[in-house]
């Protein structure tokens, strides 16, 4: 009656562990290799037509009016963002790029807006004021559940006659939601960047800071002395 006592059987543990170690080497090697290759790919996405967005002003921004006509010349546009890949918008989904360098996008936006309002001078010599633009941020700012596009400019407004220069800042922001499909996401990013660019150019050309800088630069010496 009763249950038989369980018999303990010795197992050849050394042999089993040896086999297990051999079988584990291969998956670990494959995993390490694939992670290394994946990280290399992830760090270096390449711009292609299907992952590139076009950023430009949809309609030129109308600059503010000054008491007397002023002609601007867009001088240097310098990227100070310190971004090693300035055209890369995001690394996600194999990378999304803008079609031109940020400095070219900003220059084009400023020149087209000033030209539309007949306030663009063809050269520096004939301009009343020269705008030297420093681009401090062009791209996405850190965000969790959406795209937060941000463009920050510092502009040196230089009077070529006196050589005096004043610095003003302008910024543009835009928020758009993250889409599920990559195509929709690119469309949203394009809208987001265009919005931020338009906002930044508007903030500069219609800003009180530019108004004050122009007034102080173009004030006659007699009135400035009083």
């Amino acid at each position, binding site marked *: 009656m009763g249950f038989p006592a369980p018999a303990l059987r010795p197992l050849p543990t050394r042999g089993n562990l040896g086999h297990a170690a051999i079988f584990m080497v291969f998956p670990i090697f494959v995993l390490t290799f694939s992670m290394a290759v994946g990280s290399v790919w992830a760090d270096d996405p390449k711009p292609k037509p299907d992952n590139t967005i076009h950023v430009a002003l949809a309609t030129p921004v109308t600059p503010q009016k000054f008491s007397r006509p002023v002609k601007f010349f867009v001088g240097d546009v310098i990227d100070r963002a310190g971004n090693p890949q300035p055209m890369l918008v995001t690394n996600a989904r194999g990378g999304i790029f803008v079609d031109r360098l940020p400095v070219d996008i900003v220059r084009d936006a400023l020149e087209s807006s000033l030209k539309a309002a007949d306030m663009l001078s063809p050269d520096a010599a004939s301009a009343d004021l020269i705008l030297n633009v420093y681009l401090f941020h062009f791209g996405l*700012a850190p965000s969790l559940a959406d795209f*937060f596009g941000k463009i920050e400019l510092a502009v040196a407004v230089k009077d070529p006659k006196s050589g005096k220069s004043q610095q003003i800042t302008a910024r543009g*922001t*835009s*928020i758009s939601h993250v889409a599920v499909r990559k195509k929709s996401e690119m469309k949203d990013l394009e809208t987001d960047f265009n919005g931020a660019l338009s906002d930044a150019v*508007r*903030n500069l050309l*219609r*800003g*009180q800071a530019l108004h004050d800088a122009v007034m102080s630069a173009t004030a006659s010496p007699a009135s400035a002395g009083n």
Partner: protein
Amino acid sequence: MRTFVAISLAALAGILLAAAPARAKDSKGKYKTVEAKHFDRAEGVELMPEFSDYLYAELRSRLVKTKLFDQVIGEGEVVEEADAPASVVITGTLTEYKKGNAVESRVIGFGTGKRSLKLQVTLVRRSDKKNLGSLAVRVKADPRWNEKILAVEAAKQVANEVKSSLEHEGS
């Protein structure tokens, strides 16, 4: 009887169609421009540095959605002299921020341990700096949520309060 119903329906449709443009005209921006400035922070309000930028951007997009303003302009933009009397400037301060406690929120519930943010918002008419309203806004959120979600909630509430305050101000 049928003729009577048909005539009644036609008359009703006519009234509705005539009223629609009037309603649309009323709902079109009551104010020419609104300028939202970056909100200041009171001492001791420890939020991430980009919170103010995000709140500013989100508030601007929410103000567009109120349809109370023809234009939502950026900070520091000039406004035409003619538009200044019908333009509003929004300034604000983040007066208090409590991080909340995720454990309290989970264990006790009933709003305990929630993250909270208090804002003091001021609406001013651009032309004569007349105070159009002072709003005290309080936002509560789950402590596990990101601070940016708090900014979205804050912007939403501020935009709603601004809308309600300005609508009542006009009437």
